[in-house]
């Protein structure tokens, strides 16, 4: 259980879901933004925080820029700990929202 996950921001949840869709697959920033449905360019602070916390690992793309005709990209994917933590965090977040909805439904309007 990750502390405070109930308050995890929606964009962070979207990014984690996008990465968890295929944890073995590495993606670059704009690609993650597209998969998460977030504006490209806005996901990098989230990726930096996740990487700082050890949930993500990153590496440079192994290509020859001259042969490919483009610069190498920075690729991100969830670490082994990150996969576990992200799943726990999303599950806790879901449970918390569900609990709130159930409790809210029990409240009779005044």
């Amino acid at each position, binding site marked *: 259980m*990750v502390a405070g996950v109930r*308050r995890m*921001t929606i964009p*962070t949840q979207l990014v984690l879901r996008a990465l968890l869709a295929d944890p073995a697959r590495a993606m*670059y920033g704009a690609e993650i933004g597209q998969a998460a449905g977030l504006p490209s360019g*806005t996901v990098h602070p989230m990726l930096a925080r996740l990487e700082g*916390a050890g949930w993500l690992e990153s590496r440079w*793309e192994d290509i020859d820029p001259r042969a490919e005709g*483009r610069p190498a*990209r920075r690729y991100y994917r969830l670490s082994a700990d990150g996969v576990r933590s992200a799943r726990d965090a999303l599950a806790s977040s879901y449970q918390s929202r569900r609990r709130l909805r159930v409790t809210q439904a029990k409240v009779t309007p005044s």
Partner: protein
Amino acid sequence: MTEHEPNRARAGLVVRAVTRMLPAGPIRDRYRQAFLAELHGLGGISSMLFLFGLLSRSFALRAAVRNPSADSSTISAPAKPLLCRTGLHHRWRTYLNPDGEPYRHCVRCGADRYDGMGQTNVAGNVAGNMVMPGW
């Protein structure tokens, strides 16, 4: 010189401005190269949106990069809306606590308030709050 080169040069200037806020050295170089690589191949509007996104989140990126030892509680920290932070407006919903007592919960910032549900006697609440600490 192709027609895309001036745009690419302008994009490079924006990326340079965004990454200038990051700590100098390998971190700044890393993000500069990564952003330029992601810009490569993007069309006019897409690259504008990408650059706008970078600019709008540049302070958040600087904060994230400057605090690399952040733990998971930082990841889950709420982005508290300005109106909640200033106390001007909350989006209250009514919930029940485990004892069955109603309380108000702001669905935007997560603040809770027990304020004598249904009572509108502000003076009474203020007086009660002033008396309670001495009890």
